[in-house]
């Protein structure tokens, strides 16, 4: 149809979509899950290489796909984390298969879906056309819904049903917002693909009708905000995280939330570009703070370890939204930094949690004790992960929270106080949990479990490294994007 016609000649950028698509096709046909998981890893790695290639040589943007400073780093991050996750899920699935929680057929299905997920997320990030981005986000939702329900336990089906209902309503709202944008753009810019192309919209934002933009932004905010997991549209997130396979939880927290936020930020940039429309900052600040407080308060009274950390994701997404809502070079910088660091840390934590849950055979925190004694490596990695997620040095999140809190307090003291209050509430819950999980007299199964440790070592290593020193080019580029966000 029109889309394929307009895509034009094959470029490196297309491989970001073609590789996963082909891999998915192959994986559906591969019966053996070992071979499948290897192919999964290989194709994810190829996707990562391709992403780096795109990073190196930017293709010409057209109305459908484009690359700029903002989305390319998310693409690289996405493909990197999907690569490590695929490696992790290989060992994870092996264990699941031994314990018989997953049949071979579903393992095959899992791998195919995993590639589809990468495909849709890459598409969502790379697409220049809002419509195409919407399709991609919707596809990503579908695949993850299926993944979440893959265990077919009653709880899993509940979770994915909830996930489906909430997110599909949300993206429908987002679609209406997109339609409205196109509507006003088609009046001034003229109908056709250009009127949906994000680059065009950003450049001609001042031509658009501010009133339409306001309504459109409200719809987009509620729609994509749900994907981000902002309160009060967050309800799908904990269930989806806690019931699905752990690699999927890692991808959800590490990547899918970012994709939602990315879409949201694009809309924000259009609104900001048009001078007359309402300022979206206060809305994002308010919702961000509410999500932060809510998430950190919800950490209490949890018994399921994955659910605990999924609420922590809500908290951090709130923090990032708050940062972008504050705006300004420092706050945006902090937001971008926090986005990356949170993705790496949280996915690493979910890796650890997956190991732990498999070792102990339960997600009930009351049954997990003294990991640093019984399983030193996993236990200490958990300690590092939780310290990092609490924003304590030497983790990169300390850097971002330092910037955010200091700059916010000098601008809006009250907001900063609420912010720190939320962070302290979270700290006050995560630390006793960490004590119980990692220290004390060990409980439960004490046998070691053979697992792929290197992905989470890699993640945490990156986080700690960033906390110690951010390379000059990376940082300069962060600053550039921050300036871009306005």
């Amino acid at each position, binding site marked *: 149809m029109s889309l394929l016609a307009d895509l034009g000649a094959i470029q490196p950028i297309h491989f970001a979509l073609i590789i996963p698509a082909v891999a998915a096709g192959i994986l559906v046909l591969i019966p053996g899950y070992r071979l499948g998981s290897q192919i999964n890893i290989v194709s994810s790695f190829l996707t990562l290489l391709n992403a780096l290639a795109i990073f190196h040589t930017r293709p010409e943007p057209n109305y459908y796909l484009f690359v700029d400073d903002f989305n390319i780093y998310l693409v690289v991050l996405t493909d990197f984390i999907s690569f490590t996750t695929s490696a992790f899920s290989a060992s994870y699935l092996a264990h699941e298969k031994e314990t018989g929680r997953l049949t071979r057929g579903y393992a095959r299905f899992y791998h195919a879906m995993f590639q589809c997920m990468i495909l849709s997320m890459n598409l969502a990030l790379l697409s220049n056309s809002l419509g195409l981005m919407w399709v991609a986000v919707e596809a990503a939702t579908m695949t993850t819904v299926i993944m979440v329900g893959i265990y077919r336990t009653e709880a899993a089906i509940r979770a994915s049903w909830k996930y489906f209902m909430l997110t599909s309503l949300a993206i429908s709202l987002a679609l209406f917002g997109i339609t409205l944008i196109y509507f006003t753009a088609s009046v001034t810019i003229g109908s056709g693909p250009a009127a949906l192309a994000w680059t065009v919209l950003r450049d001609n934002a001042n031509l658009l009708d501010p009133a339409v933009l306001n309504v459109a932004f409200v719809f987009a905010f509620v729609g994509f905000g749900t994907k981000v997991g902002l309160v009060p549209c967050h309800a799908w997130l904990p269930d989806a995280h806690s019931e699905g396979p752990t690699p999927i939880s890692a991808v959800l927290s590490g990547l899918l939330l970012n994709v939602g936020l990315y879409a949201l930020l694009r809309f924000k940039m259009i609104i900001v570009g048009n001078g007359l429309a309402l300022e979206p900052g206060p809305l994002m600040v308010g919702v961000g703070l509410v999500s932060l407080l809510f998430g950190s308060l919800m950490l209490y009274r949890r*018994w399921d370890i994955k659910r605990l950390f999924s609420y922590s994701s809500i908290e951090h997404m709130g923090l990032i939204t708050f940062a972008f809502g504050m705006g300004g070079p420092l706050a945006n910088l902090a937001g971008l930094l926090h986005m990356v660091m949170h993705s790496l840390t949280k996915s690493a934590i979910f890796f650890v949690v997956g190991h732990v849950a498999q070792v102990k055979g339960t997600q009930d925190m009351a049954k997990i004790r003294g990991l640093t004694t019984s399983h030193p490596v996993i236990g200490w990695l958990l300690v590092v992960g939780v310290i990092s997620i609490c924003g304590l040095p030497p983790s990169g999140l300390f850097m971002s929270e330092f910037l955010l809190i200091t700059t916010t307090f000098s601008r809006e003291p009250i907001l900063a106080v609420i912010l720190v209050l939320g962070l302290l509430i979270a700290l006050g819950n995560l630390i006793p949990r960490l004590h119980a999980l990692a220290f004390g007299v060990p409980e439960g199964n004490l046998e070691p479990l053979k697992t792929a440790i290197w992905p989470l070592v890699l993640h945490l290593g990156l986080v700690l490294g960033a906390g110690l020193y951010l390379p000059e080019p990376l940082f300069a580029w962060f600053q550039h994007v921050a300036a871009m966000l306005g």
Partner: protein
Amino acid sequence: MLMTDPKLKLEICYLLSGSMAIVSFALLYQSRMAATINTFAVHALLLGLVVALQADIQAEHNLYLTAAIAVLFKAIAIPLALHFIIRKFDLHRTIEMVVSPGLTMTAGLGLVVVAVMVMRPVTVHSDALVTADLIFAMVVLLLGILMMITRRNAITQVVGFMSLENGLILAMAGVHGMPLVVEISVALTVLVACIVFGMFFFRIRERFSSLDIRHLESDGRVSQ
């Protein structure tokens, strides 16, 4: 010969999209499941007609495809499937609404007011048809959501969801020459089709005796 008059086409288009809103009200009012499904079929049929008309008016041939999808899937296939499920699970009982129909209708009226209030100033610069189309689309959208949150039953919730999707397609068809409409409508249909049929219902039939999502709601352990 009659349909050659563009003015008349606009009138009819206007009428049809307005009637979609009215049918949405009817959906909201319906308290019997079979009737709900039939009403939805009508809703989808109207959508197909509107989109086809828009395709004719805007000379956008892609829209014909969208119209066809709407009619074939939403107006025929899905209602049949739903009827099948009802018969299979023997759900010929009335739906217990969460709130009384009267109250629901009142809320619906309120939503119409909201839609008009929000959309009217938005569309002052554009022609009447687009204005009406967008307003009606938004009404259908909001009523669909209202239906989703006033029903307990999975089927009716899905029906509500599909009706709000009809509203979306209505809006997309209304604005001139929106690209990717076909892709998006396909995506929406796939959304409904694959999820509603492919996944949930079979699983749910595996697990639960009925479709009442009270089974699907609680978080399990309250002590979380």
